[in-house]
């Protein structure tokens, strides 16, 4: 992993189009600004990971895994 020290207001470029800016450091929290191309989705890692796990779990269902006669509530 590349490790870079930055001060508030300083930025990091990922390629030519993605800018990461350290906005503010306060105690153990860092506010970060991200300016990325429209085609590049940005996720908080823990949310990305939990959704990835959930997608993978959903994709393990077999063709007959779903109940066809449902006790649907409405």
């Amino acid at each position, binding site marked *: 992993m590349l490790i870079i020290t930055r001060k508030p207001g300083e930025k990091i470029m990922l390629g030519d189009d993605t800018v990461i800016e350290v906005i503010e450091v306060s105690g153990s929290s860092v506010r970060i600004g991200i300016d990325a191309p429209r085609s590049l989705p940005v996720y908080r890692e823990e*949310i990305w990971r*939990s*959704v*990835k796990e*959930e997608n993978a779990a959903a994709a393990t269902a*077999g063709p007959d*895994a*779903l109940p066809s006669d449902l*006790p649907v509530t409405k």
Partner: protein
Amino acid sequence: MAVTLQSTRFGPLEIPEDAVLEFPQGLIGLGGSRYTLLARSDDAAFVWLHSLEDPALALPLTNPWRFFDSYEVEIADDEADRLGVDAAGDTAVYVTVRAAEALEDFSANLRAPILVSGGFGHQVINQAPDAPVRAPLFSTSAEKAA
């Protein structure tokens, strides 16, 4: 021109061109760029989002409002602009379903709904406060029955 899908789950299927959905960013962690929706009937509670590139990749989805009356999807305006979806427009909303042996262990991912509009699909992160990754699908009916 129809696309032939050799599904490991459902066998060979002919998919009409206008049923092909483009997912520019794929599904989170799964990728893929072309999917289609398969249903056993028009009013089926569950549909399958099936990859057209990977014959073994398919996820069950459902309409969240079928199970969660008060469900809300909230995405930032610039995110909606980026994806070209419109709250007022005809955007279909689905959530992925985690199947299980027992009905009470079924869950839906309310945090990362899939929006389908104009032949494009996007899995987004829902900013609404009450949107768990694993919301039990059948607990409400179990409580009502008890």
